[in-house]
């Protein structure tokens, strides 16, 4: 592969990940091209971009998944490269081939590797051949009858998963035969809507499994390295919500072994660029290959925190044909990520789109916030409710956790419901602190986590509420006396007044 500096990068994606990629591009002085659906004209990735073009429409199929429109914009804007982010077209081998045909550099793996790994079922086959242990499971399933047959063969509980999927979307746990049919149907609908491919397969559901994944980087000159693991066992409805590194369960020996397997997995499928090899670790600390995600992961920042490496920069360098400059990368300390969602934990985690009335981002030592929103932004109902990723670094796990608690407390995101206080409850839980947890953590402790919190702030709240009401009634009285209409915000005046003295 010949070396070629990239001149302009189009990012057919939205939200925090589009902004994340734009930031590195700006640091590298590479202009970016944003694209946006109708509801996203006000999105941060449009405001942050150097150039922005409308996709006209609001459905994913007519916007962020619409290759024709994206290629037309690439041509118009003169973009010579595309960074897909995660989701949308990021693991679409056909799209990568189309990029290649048009002479556009795709910042990601070659289509062959995506195809091999993208069909989860094919990936498992390759890994088995390479001697890597794999979780028992099925081929893609076309109808309910086959699903029932496969589930009976594997034995309940089973996991239904989108063949083309990832990120927890289109995934269902089925514990009893009578639940299989509706789960299978819901899964196919979700898979179709999220990935444009309704195919679903089935996997044995391990007992008390931990989800541990390894970050790999492979250049176009045959070098493959790994950047250690990420522990992603804190999941709700099969969606990761808290990730950490290092994993509390790995010792150096296991880390070395799994790292070698991850590098080997990347090697056997001819992988180039950044990728993630996911494993399940069972209660006896056996590990199984689960799948390879052929793109940047949501949780990549925790790896950046402990290694000091910018993974998006590495992706761009690799796409430019540069060799990896690192033989091995040392790690330092510990990092934690919390995914901040616009959802209501008190109301069955219903998504909570709407206007962000006030926003204070946490700051200070060891805190990174990769956000896709701003104060005054109306979170649209059309997309995933993740609004930011809060990441903390610490000299050790304890410090990273304490910082996360502090940062979550600093994080005010008002007007909508968020999972912020829910995340605090998870992180403060003694079982999380012990490091001894698995993917059922949230299900197991559901009741403790949904506690409505301490009441000892009640009298503060009552005092504050009454003072506010008292002040308003004072000002309304004053307003009426001065002939002001009652709806004029007395509070505004109050805010201004203070420059006049105490």
């Amino acid at each position, binding site marked *: 592969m010949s070396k070629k500096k990239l001149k302009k990068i189009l990012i057919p994606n939205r939200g925090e990940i589009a902004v994340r990629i734009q930031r590195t591009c700006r640091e590298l002085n590479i202009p970016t091209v944003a694209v946006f659906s109708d509801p996203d004209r006000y999105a941060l990735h449009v405001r942050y971009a150097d150039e922005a073009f409308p996709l006209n429409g609001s459905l994913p199929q007519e916007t962020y998944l619409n290759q024709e429109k994206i290629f037309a914009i690439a041509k118009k804007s003169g973009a010579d490269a595309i960074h897909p982010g995660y989701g949308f077209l990021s693991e679409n081998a056909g799209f990568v081939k189309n990029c290649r045909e048009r002479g556009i550099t795709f910042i990601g793996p070659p289509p062959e590797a995506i195809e091999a790994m993208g069909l989860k079922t094919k990936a498992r086959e390759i890994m088995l051949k390479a001697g890597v242990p794999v979780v028992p499971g099925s081929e893609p399933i076309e109808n309910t009858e086959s699903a029932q047959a496969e589930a009976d063969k594997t034995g309940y509980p089973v996991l239904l998963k989108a063949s083309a999927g990832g990120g927890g979307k289109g995934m269902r746990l089925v514990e009893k035969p009578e639940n299989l049919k509706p789960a299978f149907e819901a899964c196919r*609908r*979700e898979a179709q809507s999220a990935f444009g491919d309704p195919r679903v397969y089935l996997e044995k559901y391990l007992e008390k499994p931990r989800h541990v994944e390894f970050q790999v980087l492979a250049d176009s000159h045959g070098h493959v390295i790994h950047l250690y693991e990420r522990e992603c066992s804190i999941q709700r409805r099969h969606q990761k919500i808290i990730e950490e590194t290092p994993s509390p369960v790995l010792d150096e020996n296991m880390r070395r072994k799994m790292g070698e397997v991850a590098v080997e997995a990347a090697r056997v499928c001819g992988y180039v660029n950044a990728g993630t090899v996911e494993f399940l670790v069972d209660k006896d600390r056996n590990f199984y290959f689960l799948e390879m995600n052929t793109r940047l992961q949501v949780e990549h920042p925790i790896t950046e925190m402990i290694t000091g490496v910018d993974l998006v920069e590495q992706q761009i360098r690799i796409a430019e044909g540069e060799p990896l400059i690192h033989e091995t990368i040392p790690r330092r300390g510990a990092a934690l990520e919390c995914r901040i969602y616009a959802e209501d934990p008190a109301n*069955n985690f219903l998504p909570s789109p709407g206007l962000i009335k006030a926003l204070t981002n946490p700051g200070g030592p060891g805190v990174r916030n990769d956000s896709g929103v701003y104060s005054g932004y109306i979170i649209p*109902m059309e997309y995933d409710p993740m609004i930011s990723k809060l990441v903390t670094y610490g000299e050790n796990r304890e410090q990273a956790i304490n910082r996360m608690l502090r940062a979550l407390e600093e994080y005010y995101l008002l007007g909508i419901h968020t999972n912020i206080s829910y995340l605090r409850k998870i992180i403060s839980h003694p079982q999380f602190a012990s490091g001894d947890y698995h993917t059922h953590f949230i299900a197991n402790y559901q009741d403790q986590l949904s506690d409505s919190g301490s009441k000892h702030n009640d009298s*503060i709240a009552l*005092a*504050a509420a009454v003072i506010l009401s008292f002040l308003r009634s004072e000002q309304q009285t004053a307003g009426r006396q001065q002939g002001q209409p009652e709806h004029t915000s007395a509070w505004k005046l109050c805010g201004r007044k203070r420059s006049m003295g105490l």
Partner: protein
Amino acid sequence: MKYTAILNDKEREVEITRQGPHQFHVIVDGQPHEVDARHCSSGWFSILIDNTSHDIYFTLDKENVELNFRSQNFNIKVLDERKMRMRRIRSDLDISGTEIIKTSMPGKVVKVLVKEGETVKSGAGIIIIEAMKMENEIQCRNSGVVKTIHVAAGQTVESDAALIEIEPEQI
């Protein structure tokens, strides 16, 4: 001045006396507090209550005060004596126990899981709404009989729209 503040359906007595431009003497449930309260910027209130500091975000809507601090959310109804009297009169008239199933966000109805006239148990799944790429099942709080279904599968619904009404069973 005396107020009744309602938090989590409990009525609490709060008395407030102005002591200075930003200073108040406040008695909550018989406990006196010295408070220094400042409006820092739009929606933000800094209060020192007996010298403990709290940074509070607020919205005021008639008698409803919504507060957020230390990652906690508070919805408080504050009524002066006149409003409290009016409330007492009104509440005597309020006898309906119909539960209205709503969605707190706009979305699309995927499936209605019940039929009109059907008897449902508390916690039963009533309807599936798709929003933000996820299907969400909404359950009912109380047992009862499905009285009216306002929506059908495929329909788009606004937040807080009444979807389905459930009447308590006659005892």
